């Protein structure tokens, strides 16, 4: 159900027209995310967080370096890596149930079987009564729950999340964070979670990777070993937040 993820010297360079115009997005990133660990990535905007996830997911090619899943290198798109987008990216012509089924359908799972599996997600994800609604009829929080269900139903070994709650209002966002933790504590997926919201990272993660500005490096991996459920306003949470914020501000100053 979950595997470790390791990045070794992972590098991404965008080449526009010649080597002189090339922009280094991130350089020689090295890190290891343990099986079942919840790791967040925070960093200044434009530091390439989204590109990093896209490279791990195989939607873009790395310029150099390797991605390892449980010790074996993966190349390009690997079905064991799932990706959840900030914009939900639901198929607007598919109803909730059909959206959740999509990955199983691509995998050739028979209709009856995938319908049963999708109905289970509908029940567990608070989507009962909305299975036959189109995405345009759902609220932002519901859309993201559909998107999460759509990815988790394919049982990826590593789940990448790209600012999944970035366009939600703060109350819905808090609810969704709690929801995601509940799901994760049941399943123990390996999660790599990109956010620009430090509070969110501290509330959710076991560990937070703080990235620098471009060319991006990992400034520090901050441990957040507070017991769950966490208190967002506790001194311990504040302490971790302060560390991350000061890392980020020095990074911007440089």
């Amino acid at each position, binding site marked *: 159900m979950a595997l470790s993820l390791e990045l070794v010297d992972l590098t991404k360079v965008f080449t526009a027209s010649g080597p002189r115009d090339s922009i280094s997005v991130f350089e020689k990133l090295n890190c290891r995310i343990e099986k079942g660990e919840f790791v967040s990535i925070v960093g200044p905007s434009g530091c390439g967080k989204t590109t990093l996830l896209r490279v791990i997911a195989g939607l873009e090619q790395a310029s150099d370096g390797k991605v390892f899943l449980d010790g074996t290198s993966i190349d390009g798109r690997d079905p064991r890596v799932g*990706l959840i987008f900030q914009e939900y*990216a*639901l*198929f*607007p*012509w598919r109803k909730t149930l059909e959206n959740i089924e999509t990955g199983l359908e*691509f*995998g050739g799972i028979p209709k009856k079987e995938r319908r049963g599996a999708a109905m289970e997600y509908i029940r567990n994800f608070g989507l009962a009564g909305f299975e036959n609604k189109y995405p*345009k009829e759902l609220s932002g929080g519901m859309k993201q729950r559909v998107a999460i269900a*759509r990815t988790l139903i394919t049982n990826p070994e590593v789940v990448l999340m790209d600012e999944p709650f970035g366009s939600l209002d703060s109350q819905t966002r808090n609810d969704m964070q709690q929801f995601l933790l509940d799901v994760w504590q049941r399943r123990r997926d390996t999660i790599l979670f990109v956010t620009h919201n430090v509070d969110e990272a501290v509330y959710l993660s076991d560990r937070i990777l703080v990235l620098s500005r471009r060319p991006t490096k990992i400034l520090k991996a901050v441990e957040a070993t507070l017991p769950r459920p966490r208190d967002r306003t506790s001194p311990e949470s504040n302490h971790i937040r302060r560390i991350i914020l000061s890392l980020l501000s020095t990074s911007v100053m440089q």
Partner: protein
Amino acid sequence: MKGKRLLSPIIFIVCWQILTLAEIIPAFKLPSPAQVLLGLRDLIQLGMPPGHPLLYHILYSLERVFWGYSVAVLIAVPLGIAMGWSQKIRDVVEPLVELIRPIPPLAWIPIAILWFGIGGTAAGFIIFLGAFFPVLLNTAAGVLAIDAILIEAARALNARGRDIFFKVLVPGSVPSIITGMRIGIGIGWMTLVAAEFTGVKQGYGLGYMIMTARDIQRPDEIIAGMLVIGIIGLGIDSCLRLLERRLIRWR
């Protein structure tokens, strides 16, 4: 609300009746609405030319439109999706399309008659030409307009190439395909009448019918025929609109 929508047609018909009743416009040029209704009755009962009733003209015309339009849609939709999908295919097909498209379908009539002879096939070919390009270009534009993130989402869910084609590009371009089909049938129906002016062997077709009515000086039957053509065109468009509403409820 319904009453308001009827207002302008009613005023139009009343003015028309007054103009003809007062003989401001002579009846041999513009018959009154009542005369047009009688003309319609003659078209239905006696036919124009006599022995060729309206129903047969309608069926022959619809048959030509059906074939010309169906072939156009069946070729234009897959080709349009392929053009939207692949830059290479687009680069190959587009120059030819841009070359042929500006030629009005009606300008094809002489060569169509040379190829197919005077008859239904030539008319069907003209309809094909009229409908083909709107369907093709709208379909291609529809595929191009699909949000790239949906294709990436499909890839992230482990879609293969054909999954992306059939389960993202095809459903995603349905709204544009239907728009193209509505424009296409409109143009096809318009070109039909003109295509049938050139004479169709069977002696049937709405265009042929109103042209014959002109030959024997029956303006009432010309106008009645024009109204029938308009109403059928409206009916076809309504059917497609119904289809549109059914197929793209998700929008």
